[in-house]
């Protein structure tokens, strides 16, 4: 893991979702029931489309990325996130392992009927769905389907300490 960029008043984080069912996002919104008051004092949620309209990916200390990568356009987006964030954390099974979003990688020809083929050809689906780590360097993983809640709070705490957030 790369080092922290110095002491912060608040940790600047982004939350991103790619190909998945967004179960970890939902679990995060559940964690906010108990932690919102505490976290808004120490964390700036600079990018979180699920909860905010005005978002920015500039100057992120940590990017939490949920979901597998299905296309070159998604790969380009996640590479940009990697450039803009000091640390990237893979969130949940699809980001960490690709599964179950990688199911289509195993399809044999007879499973890909005209209906599926139309979508694969009409949009920029990649040949394979891949986990986050195959596209960008990942500093940490929070595994689980959905993510393990305790592992997430421990990881968040680790970065709060790394950036010496009071």
């Amino acid at each position: 893991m790369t080092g922290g960029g110095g002491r912060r008043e608040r940790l600047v984080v982004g939350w991103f979702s790619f190909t998945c069912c967004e179960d970890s996002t939902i679990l995060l919104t559940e964690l906010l029931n108990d932690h919102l008051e505490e976290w808004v004092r120490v964390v700036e949620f600079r990018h979180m489309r699920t909860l905010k309209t005005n978002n920015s990916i500039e100057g992120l200390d940590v990017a939490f990325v949920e979901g597998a990568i299905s296309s070159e356009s998604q790969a380009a987006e996640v590479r940009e996130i990697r450039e803009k964030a000091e640390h990237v954390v893979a969130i949940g099974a699809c980001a960490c392992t690709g599964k179950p979003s990688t199911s289509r990688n195993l399809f044999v020809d007879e499973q890909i009927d005209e209906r599926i083929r139309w979508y694969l050809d009409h949009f920029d689906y990649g040949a394979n769905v891949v986990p986050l780590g195959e596209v960008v360097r990942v500093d940490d993983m929070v595994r689980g389907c959905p993510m393990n809640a305790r592992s997430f709070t421990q990881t968040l705490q680790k970065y709060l300490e790394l950036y010496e957030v009071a």
Partner: protein
Amino acid sequence: MAGRNIVIETISKIEGNAGLEVVVEDGAVKDLRFKITDYRRFLTVAARGKRMAAVPSFLSRICGTCSVAHLFASLMAIENSQGIEVSEQTKALRRLAYDGLMIRDHALHLYFFVLPDVLNVDSIFDIPDDTDDPGHTLLRDSFDVKRLGSDITDATIGATIHAPSPTVGGFLKPADHTRFPDLLARLEAVRPQVLRGIETFLGWDASLVRNSDYLCLRNEERFAFLDGDVTNSDGERISDKRFKDYLQYVRIPHSHAEGYRFSGTQEDYLVGALARLNLNYDLLHPRTRADAADAISVFPSDNVYHNNLAQAIEILQCVDDSLDILNELRVSEEKRVRPDPRAGTGASLIEAPRGLLYHSATVNAEGIVEDYDVVVPTAQNQINIENDLRYHFERNLDKDDDGLRLDAEGIIRAYDPCMSCATNFLKMDMTRR
């Protein structure tokens, strides 16, 4: 007159990814595209070849927020394929867990996604930490309501998301009834908070009135989510077994999700809480009807923003229904119904938080799933959403682009769309009857 292109790359405060592109020329809407941009995962195709017992848990991964809806719809489709009739206790526990889902899911949408619009702030993070601020009270209410919904589901089926206990024919692990007394007390205590939410959305004056057809389940005994026949605005009734025959599939070139038309009326149609309140308000729980009478008197309504109010009322309905179940239920040890596998096809039709959800499973004699279909609510609403947006833009082109973008996001958000769900499709012919 110069042309205008109004683009929202990614619509915020919804589940999943969607965008909007509008082209205006000579003072008229020339083109409008509501684009669902989540990539498909083809999980129903991947379900083929799996043992039937493994499929419901796998397909709960279609959606994080309404995983319980997909789990139960899949269990019921497979049980129907096998001729399995589950016990009354299993039905009651599923109903209880489902009430918990509705409470938590609706509260997430209403308080975390829509409430910032009501309060004119960007997000829940911008609600002042001031006990005199009405937003502060409502946000704290939301924590209690959401937590209670999650705890009901967790105590009953083992988790809020991708629950491990339910299985074909019953449960792998019994419900934790030791938590029921605490849930009963909290359900009673939360009612004033839920009523405060209903008052908030009743008082919100956002409006887009457009006459759509409405589709939902109707069970003549009670306001139900897990059983009933499909009914529409004209009172036409269709059994779950025939529902698929009435859907006309529409491929939408700019969207990863396909749309549907209902061949009974040839109109675009709307599913979800607004449809349920419009067609079933007479079936609401007596306590809900008594305590939310002013809000319920709004229905039937053609104002799409009243989908929010309908969800707020459904939270109270689910609180009152949960109280009934918990007061009456005495959980005893039961073995799950587990006959030998047989070849067959079964379908289920339930009300997910966002509307009608259809699952169909074909199983062979060895208990292996050979074919699987799903129709989800957001895909059914897609054409209606696009037509609502067109209707609104055509009548409000005098507004500036930022104002129109704000309006568009509010209209889309009112539907509570879920793109993770929408990018699963029904395998069917492009014909209608």
